[in-house]
């Protein structure tokens, strides 16, 4: 087995949500989760809704603080970095969200939304950003007449592409994909995942793919982690995991999916 360099390594990550009111129970959303993602690969995180997989994604991107644990990105512990010093990482680590309907500000046009990376970061070609945007979105299968539309008049599949195009303007090294296609139709899902794989081959970006669709995860990930109630119950290379699932829960999940297909 060859040694691959991990771009991201999660160690003993935990998150406990405080009780929302007095007397309520604290909720342990994530408990001691550890995994590593090799550069240029996709790690699939699979679990039922409410198992804490999205919480992990949000902690990595530092949208919510972690209770315990470390996240190493190219050797640097992301969770230990001060707010101010974290800013450069905001370019290198990005996140794609589940619901297209709220992924873009409804009061803005598509063009305004795509300009945001230029306003927030010192990207090359800032002076002629509109031209750069026009050129850039073509490779995402988006036409330039879309740019003038309000985001509320664009279909879900196109919104996910727009958001992805916007993320790619920042040239990130790592993207958390939080159920990127669960709200899309199968045909649009196939297009989206194809686009994501193409981007990976071209730019070497790594993904953490969070999904509850085992078929999708199997198709698109190099390595898979199975989560249940905040814990990572099993992880392995994709084919090894499907070939010989060790945990009863994994077997049950696979069985449930096979059920649907027969």
């Amino acid at each position, binding site marked *: 087995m060859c040694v691959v360099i991990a771009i991201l390594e999660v160690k003993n990550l935990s998150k406990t949500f405080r009780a929302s009111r007095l007397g309520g129970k604290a909720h342990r959303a994530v408990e001691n989760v550890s995994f590593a993602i090799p550069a240029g690969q996709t790690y699939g995180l699979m679990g039922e809704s409410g198992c804490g997989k999205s919480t992990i994604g949000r902690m990595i991107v530092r*949208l919510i603080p972690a209770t315990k644990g470390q996240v190493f990105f190219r050797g640097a512990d992301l969770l230990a970095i001060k707010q101010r010093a974290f*800013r450069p990482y905001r*370019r290198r680590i990005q996140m794609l969200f589940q619901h297209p309907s709220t992924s873009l*500000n*409804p009061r803005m046009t598509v063009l305004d939304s795509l300009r*945001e*990376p230029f306003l927030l970061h010192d990207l090359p070609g800032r002076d002629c950003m509109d031209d750069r945007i026009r050129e850039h979105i073509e490779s995402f299968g988006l036409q330039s007449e879309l740019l003038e539309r309000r985001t509320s008049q664009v279909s879900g599949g196109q919104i996910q592409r727009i958001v992805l195009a916007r993320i790619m303007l920042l040239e990130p090294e790592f993207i958390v994909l939080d159920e990127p296609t669960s709200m899309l139709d199968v045909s649009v899902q196939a297009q989206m995942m194809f686009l994501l794989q193409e981007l990976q081959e071209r730019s070497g970006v790594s993904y953490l793919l969070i999904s509850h669709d085992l078929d999708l995860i199997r198709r698109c990930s190099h390595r898979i982690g199975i989560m249940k109630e905040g814990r990572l119950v099993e992880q392995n290379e994709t084919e090894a995991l499907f070939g010989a699932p060790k945990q009863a829960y994994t077997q049950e999940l696979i069985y449930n999916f096979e059920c649907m297909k027969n």
Partner: protein
Amino acid sequence: MKKFLFYCALTILIAFIFIGIFADLIAPMDPDAINMANSLASPSAEHLLGTDHLGRDLLSRLIYGSRSSVFIAFFATGCTLLLGLTIGLVSGYFGGWEDQLIQGVVNIFQGIPSTAFVVAVLGLLGPGIKSLLIAIVVSSWARFSRVVRNQVLGIREMHYIEGARAMGGSNLYIIRRHVLPNILLPLLVLIATRIGSTVLTVAAMSFLGLGLRAPASDWGIMINDAKLYFVNDFRVLLAPATCLTLFCLSINLIADYLRDHLDNDADTARIL
């Protein structure tokens, strides 16, 4: 039909604002010029709407009245908005113990009936335009901030806020670019109704003698003045009352239309 009413209302509102601003140029006479010999005169070429019990030109008093009413209404609403918006934004966006504290204060303020509150504050500060403004702002910011907070709480959960943060947007950037534009339109409706009720509050306080003081011309004072004479000459009551009603009606129609229109927009977007 709704659209027609909206434009009528808008025209009336703009007319009131215009009249208020250019009162000195438009008013045919000095609103405070007393002429006891000509009291309670019927409309004539000289006094288009006649005169009141002191012989002052009714039309000119109405025109100057709209100045004070409209000015106070807009200014007070503006101040309320500024205070309520800031507090509501902080409370809704940042959450945590600040939010809990602010909501506690808001609850107390909201528990007090607003008219009684205004009267109490005016009693404490003494009548006058400044205390009237303070009283109105103090008694109504809480509701504003509550609405703003609820809107912000809804928007805070949206992916585009998370997305902007993930791209490195600061809190200020996110509030300015993503939060404010999305709460402003629903707020517009609230602002409009607020202006209407402020005019009524001003008139009511002036009527009670707690707001503006005679001889200043204000619709509330005019109604107060008229209460002794309207049995003989209904005109003196009718004129300021009509203005008051017209102003509030137009504001409410505008608010109504805006609300319907905004909802419609949201509906269409949802179907598509």
